[in-house]
């Protein structure tokens, strides 16, 4: 039996509700987990050096790391 317009609307609405429930605004004072050292992109200098080398070699891209912090909303 083909889906009716009503059932299709209900399915879309349900999907929207489920997707929206996965969203969360993280406020500056709620960033404890994000401020963890493991969240820092530059925590492994050797790994970062290799990644930079790869990007420069393959894509002639370099730098662009001017943003500091681990997303903790601090300084």
């Amino acid at each position, binding site marked *: 039996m083909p889906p009716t317009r009503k059932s299709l609307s209900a399915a879309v609405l349900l999907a929207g509700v489920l997707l*929206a429930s996965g*969203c*969360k*605004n993280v*406020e*500056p*004072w*709620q*960033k*404890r987990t994000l*401020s*963890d050292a493991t969240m820092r992109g530059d925590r492994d200098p050797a790994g970062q050096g290799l990644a930079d080398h790869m990007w420069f070699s393959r894509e002639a891209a370099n730098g662009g790391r001017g943003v500091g912090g681990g997303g*903790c*909303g*601090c*300084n």
Partner: protein
Amino acid sequence: MGVLGAATLSPFRLSAAAAKAGDKLPDLAKFGLEGTLPATAGKVVHLDFWASWCVPCKESFPVLEALHKEYGPKGYVLIGISMDEEKAEMDRFLKQNKVTFPIVRDAKEKAAFSLRPPGMPTSYFVAPDGVIHSVHPKFEGESTRKTYVGIIEELLAKLK
């Protein structure tokens, strides 16, 4: 417009517009903060939102303690508002970073959602008439200390 007057409906929580200079500071007693609030009526009030996981907050503590010791007897009240989810984490931090100014914990995040500090730490300076003088996110060492001293002395002059 009052701090709570410009409330907007976020998808998941009713939140107020960020407090700014010129707004009246809401009554802190209504936020259900854990800990004892000092008397603030007619005093220069400094609210400092901090958390144990925030590195600049840790750097700010010796400066805040010095401000409290120097200006506390002159009518300045500093209140540290911890945003730690776990009280144990706050206690552990305070054990390692001893201060004598009052610390309360915003466990229910009511104060934070009312004032909406834009970063950690954020300091609010409040004039003796209860109006917010200025809002200062970030702590950047000596330059921030000098800014704070200037504001405190300016506001204390109003008490005389």
